[in-house]
């Protein structure tokens, strides 16, 4: 069981001792029972921090935002920034360091173990018809405060799919860690949802994805929320953000338009498939993209597929080590090649 007071005290002490510039954590939002990301910079703000089943956000996104802000303002950061990181968040922080987005010394990881549970999938709760005003961890259950009083639900009934299949709910990479290491508490076998989907024949799979890609409204919430989607230059943007007064007209005029702005099936598909391939070996299954999709496109299936290929074909585990090679910039002599003529 994680003691919230420990989390707050840790943040408070580090800020008071000027050991970190800020702490990226969760606080209560003004939108019902949900948590929201926050960056606190003063010790007295530490009591705003919370830890409950709605802390699903992958906060390593804000490490990226922080870097971008520093680069933009040409500011130098003398102190590290601290982050509250679940197992998955810690893995994506590792990927960012593996890609040299920042260095290990730039970040102070306050790991939190997800212990017996994971985090909530809000949609599963809505499907159960529960309207809660608060949620809390309690052993293997989530406890919700509703108009009818307290409601206790086994976590696995409303837990996010990725948490059910999680292999590493304990943040291995950390400076300090809160909670117990319950690695191996995995409730569903990895890739359970993926396997279920793959039982469909190709025609049925196509029918499924055809429908999904058509529904995309291209709000880019999936891209915006993804810590790995940090590129300054993305094929879906109308412009390249590194444009300055020195960029020549030719550079601007010759920029390749890989994808049109129209939210049609073909364009949407190109966008999502490009993104999935760009995330291969980098996606650590925080599943934020699927969570934030306003029209519920099951993006996790796509990312899971790549993750499993990487694992089974190339023995690659994303976010395993800072110094390790990246999936698509490395190879083994034993990589499968039978498909090549």
């Amino acid at each position, binding site marked *: 069981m994680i003691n919230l007071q420990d989390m707050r005290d840790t943040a408070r002490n580090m800020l008071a001792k000027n050991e970190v510039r800020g702490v990226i954590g969760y606080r209560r939002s003004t939108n019902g029972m949900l948590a929201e990301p926050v960056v606190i910079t003063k010790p007295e703000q530490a009591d705003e921090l919370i830890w409950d089943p709605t802390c699903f956000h992958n906060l390593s996104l804000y490490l990226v935002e922080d870097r971008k802000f520093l680069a933009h303002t040409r500011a130098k950061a003398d102190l590290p920034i601290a982050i509250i990181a679940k197992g998955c968040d810690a893995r994506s922080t590792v990927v960012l360091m593996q890609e040299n987005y920042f260095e290990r010394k730039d970040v102070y990881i306050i790991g939190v173990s997800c212990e017996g549970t994971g985090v909530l999938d809000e949609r599963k709760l809505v499907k159960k018809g529960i309207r809660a005003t608060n949620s809390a961890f309690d052993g293997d259950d989530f406890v919700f405060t509703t108009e009818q009083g307290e409601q206790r639900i086994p976590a696995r009934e409303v837990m996010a799919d990725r948490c059910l299949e999680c292999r590493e709910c304990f943040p291995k990479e950390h400076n300090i860690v809160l909670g117990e290491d319950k690695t191996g508490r995995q409730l569903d076998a990895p890739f359970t949802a993926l396997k279920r989907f793959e039982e469909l024949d190709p025609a049925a799979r196509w029918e499924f994805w055809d429908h999904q890609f058509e529904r995309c409204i291209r709000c880019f919430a999936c891209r915006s929320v993804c810590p790995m989607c940090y590129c300054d230059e993305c094929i879906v943007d109308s412009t390249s953000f590194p444009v300055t007064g020195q960029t020549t*007209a*030719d550079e601007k*005029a010759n*920029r390749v338009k890989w994808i049109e702005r129209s939210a049609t099936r073909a364009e949407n598909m190109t966008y999502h498939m490009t993104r999935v391939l760009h995330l291969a070996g980098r996606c650590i299954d925080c599943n934020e993209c699927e969570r934030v999709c306003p029209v519920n496109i099951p993006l996790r299936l796509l990312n899971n597929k790549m993750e499993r290929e990487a694992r089974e074909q190339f023995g690659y585990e994303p976010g395993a080590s800072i110094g390790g090679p990246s999936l698509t910039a490395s190879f083994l002599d034993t990589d499968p090649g039978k498909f090549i003529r």
Partner: protein
Amino acid sequence: MSDNIYLPELARITHIKEEIGGERSIKTYRVEPVEGAAFEHECGQCAMLSLFGRGEMMISIASSPLIKEYKQFSIMRVGRVSAAFHELEVGEVVGIRGPYGNSFPLDDWRGKNLVFIGGGVGLAPIWPLITTALAQRADFNNITVFYGARSASDLMYKAELDHMRSNADIQLSVDKAEPGWKEFCGFVPANVLDKKPSPDNTIAITCGPPIMIKFVIQNLQKLGFADEQIYTTIENKMKCGLGKCGRCNVGKDYVCTKGPVYSWAQLKELPEEY
């Protein structure tokens, strides 16, 4: 204008003049409608030029409203559409829709002194005003044109300006001294301060890079110009020109319909979002 507010009319390029060479070259185009008469416009208004397959761009009309047969545009090569425009030749057909935006209140200024202050390609938006005022020379008192650019080879409308010297006080400048340059050396705002145009019964109109405009206004204020005597134009990214696409607003005003012309008295009330 047709009922279809997004459908451009076809217009043929009848004349191209290269004003300035180099990477950011400027060319002046004259376009005439392929069919029928061109729309009427007023000084300071803009038009949306189309190159099909490339897109649209909002450009201020650089010819006087007194000229009915063609419209003139001075285009700097800076982006996707403008770069493609620079590849065009006389006789080719482009799209045009407009006119858009408000205009300079020239009629209110009759009998006054006019001081024009332009920098770089910023001479183009006030060019219709200068040429109209000179065409109606008797209606106005003293006319002064300050114009400057980085170097002598970056000055546009050079021949036309020289031609105007008999009718107006032309004050040219280059940012840095160069061999053979006999006029003012230094930035445009400094030239204005140097020549000290009198604010009495005078309207000052300025257009150029934002940083230049800022210092021109400061210097005009030093010379005693009131905010109501200073006019400028602003620009923002535009897509529709019709006050609908929602990106060119400065505060509550869409620049494409409420602008681009503002007196400093009006502009200083708006947030600095341009």
